[in-house]
């Protein structure tokens, strides 16, 4: 299945892109996606340790199941206000 990945701030700077369609073997959870991301992009390992994952604009945890076509965000520690 395919999901839409979107990254921000420092992660976006390191990767050099903001959005990417990613192929995942279904069924897949957030934990599966994180493992695959670290294998594909080892350069964000340190940053990822402080990031949380959103699924369809809601905060998720490792057990959240990903659906075909969902939007997954890699969210660094926020600093608005």
């Amino acid at each position, binding site marked *: 299945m395919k999901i839409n990945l*979107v990254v*921000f*701030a*420092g992660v976006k700077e390191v990767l050099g892109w903001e959005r990417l369609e990613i192929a995942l073997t279904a069924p897949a959870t957030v934990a599966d996606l994180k493992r695959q991301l670290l294998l594909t992009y080892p350069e964000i390992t340190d940053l990822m340790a*402080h990031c949380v994952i*959103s699924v369809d*604009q*809601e*905060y998720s945890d490792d057990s959240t199941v990903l659906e075909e076509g969902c939007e997954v*965000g890699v*969210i*660094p*520690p*926020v*600093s*608005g*206000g």
Partner: protein
Amino acid sequence: MIKLTEQPIQAQEALDAIADCNAGANLLFVGTTRQWTGEQETRELKYECYQEMALKQMQQLHDQAMEKWPLLGVCMIHRLGSVPVGETSIAVAVSSAHRQPAFQAGPWLIDRLKQVVPVWKQEINQQGDSSWVHPVNPGATS
């Protein structure tokens, strides 16, 4: 009212959004870019966000505040892009019949916004160097 904008924020807009003839108390918090943080001089802050999620999270905070307290109005406006020293990055306003709910909801909303709304700031110093501000590395606003 929930809003993300690249334009300067007018305080009066936030106050107008929460005005209610049954409100006796109107509280407005305005976060501005601070020039000095210790010995570090800031020139501007640059904000970016995950827009769809930021709006969703802000709307949830709005709804949660309305449930927790007897509020008449809640408004949150966050500026994006460059915010020079002295200008407003965030305005949070609440109104209520009496002042206690407003004084409880105001700080709660800004605290929660800083915890959950996906907005990130970069600090640009006088030399033009930029760095991402993380909560563990507090930056040049409130």
